[in-house]
């Protein structure tokens, strides 16, 4: 009886999933008719960026406040590749994303040694360092003026139309979404989620905790890099703003608003905040900070699962079933106090830990 219901609900969930995906794809294709195309491009880029943060925070439990570094490094690398080497933009974006991943390796190696709020601040510190370097190295980065007029060439087509570019960006970002979704729902993803709950246990099972953490970090940086590259080509410019910590904050806000550990919530969060920012720019409302801040506070206090979490919980309640699709995910609230073995982890983490 119970099994039957589970199977049915799984099947129903699967159909629902496909339906949702189809609707999402349709919406994505129609987006540039609904909003101004450059804004649509922004939504794509920010969505992937927020998702890259969510992979780390929502699944592996590592909140990075330094993702601006990867977004920005990739944006600059993308821009330079396009300007200086004249490579077509998809390739330039790849160059950017790879650069971001490369930068993430040493940062990751240091950062994964720390946990919780320490990790958050270490990533922030490195990002600030990169910001200073970019500012100083103005011969390369254009300093405060930034890189301007990044070309958008590819197989001789007319890409300068943001409407056309949107579709190219959609393809690239969709690949990024797919990689994110796939890796979260992969064996490795399972290890990451388990690791967040109880690292000592996972280590004793035979997984190298640090290696998984670094991997997640670099993968996330790569995705953030794709996002930064798409954004740079979209705006045809890169500025120091892209490396500043507020950029990380914005990405986190989107991930949290959409719902952490939901992946696709990031898209919702990004869309809402980009549209909100766009609206505020011409609305005459000057209280931009208050609005963003209030969004943060309300979400954290009342819908810790974010919009996606709240909606899917409501749907689940309507359908009256299925804990199975929630099961393998970490709870959106994250573990309160690290569970039972934390004490053991702490002692085994002593000064003489390898």
């Amino acid at each position: 009886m119970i099994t039957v219901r589970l199977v049915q609900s799984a099947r129903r969930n699967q159909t629902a999933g496909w339906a949702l995906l189809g609707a999402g794809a349709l919406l994505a294709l129609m987006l540039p008719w609904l909003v101004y195309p450059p804004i649509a491009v922004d939504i794509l880029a920010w969505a992937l960026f927020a998702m890259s943060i969510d992979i780390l925070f929502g699944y592996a439990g590592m909140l990075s406040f330094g993702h601006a570094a990867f977004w920005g490094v990739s944006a600059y690398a993308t821009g330079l590749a396009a300007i200086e080497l004249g490579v077509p933009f998809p390739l330039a974006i790849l160059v950017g994303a790879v650069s971001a991943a490369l930068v993430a390796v040493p940062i990751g190696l240091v950062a994964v040694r720390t946990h919780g709020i320490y990790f958050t601040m270490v990533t922030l510190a490195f990002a600030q360092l990169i910001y200073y370097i970019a500012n100083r190295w103005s011969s390369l980065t254009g300093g405060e003026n930034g890189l301007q007029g990044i070309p958008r060439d590819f197989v001789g087509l007319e890409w300068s139309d943001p409407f056309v570019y949107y579709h190219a960006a959609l393809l690239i970002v969709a690949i990024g979404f797919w990689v994110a979704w796939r890796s979260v729902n992969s064996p490795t993803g399972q290890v990451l989620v388990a690791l967040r709950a109880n690292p000592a246990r996972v280590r004793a099972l035979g997984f190298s905790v640090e290696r998984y953490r670094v991997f997640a970090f670099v993968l996330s940086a790569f995705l953030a890099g794709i996002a930064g590259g798409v954004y740079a080509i979209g705006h045809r410019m890169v500025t120091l703003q892209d490396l500043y910590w507020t950029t990380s904050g914005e990405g986190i806000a989107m991930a949290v608003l959409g719902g952490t550990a939901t992946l696709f919530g990031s898209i919702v969060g990004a869309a809402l905040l980009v549209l909100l920012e766009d609206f505020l720019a011409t609305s005459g409302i000057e209280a931009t900070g208050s609005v963003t801040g209030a969004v943060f506070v309300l979400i954290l206090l009342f819908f810790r699962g974010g919009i996606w979490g709240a909606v899917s919980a409501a749907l689940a309640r309507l359908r009256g079933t299925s804990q199975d699709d929630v099961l393998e995910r970490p709870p959106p609230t994250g573990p309160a106090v690290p569970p039972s073995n934390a004490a053991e982890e702490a002692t085994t983490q002593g000064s003489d830990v390898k």
Partner: protein
Amino acid sequence: MSVVIRVSSMPTWGRTVLELRHVSAGYGEATVLHEVSLQVGQGDVVTLIGRNGAGKSTLLRSIMGLHPISSGSIKFLGRDITRLRPHRRARMGLGWVQDDRGIYSSLTVEENLRLPRVIGANAWAEERLFGTFPVLGQRRRQMAGSLSGGEQQMLALARVLRMGADVVLCDEPTEGLAPVIVDQIAEILREVASSGATILLVEQNLRFATTVAHKHFLIAEGHIVDHLDNSDVIARENDLLAHLGI
């Protein structure tokens, strides 16, 4: 569970210090304690016996005020404490040893010991504690989280002794202790009782239970199903094991 013996009024041994009337409690929708009533007299050493998940710890937490009860009332020293905050109950003379030891890992051993409020005249002085548990004395400046499992258990007990509570609620104080220490703990509990304090003990180790306590409540699935004295327990040991899985 075959028989459920409903007990409406429990016998007392001496002046009643703690009295529970029809206490029910649960987690979310699930009720874990069903109308539990019991009385404990001054100087008694009483155990609560029941298998894992029977609700023993929940009962102790409810008495301490750390778990909300959905109905019923609790009286302590003749006063209704049902609505009292935990720290007020503690100051009236209730002490509690948590089942998972409840060690403050961010405090040293010494700080762990100094934290509780000294309440009664029977409070143990620090020297006496270190005399009884010399290993804690040796480790007084160590962070308590890095103590061995058994050392943590000793610390948990030592902390409550420092309070000098009139009634000590003790949740599995012998878990993970070496046999020689278990004997020592039995000794200590007897000593505490002889100084006039009352002990309500949760214990799975029947042998230990019978060496320290005179009376035993059997609890199963949240019901108090029986109350026995030592001779009953020893006589019915096999029966108890079979039925209750203790």
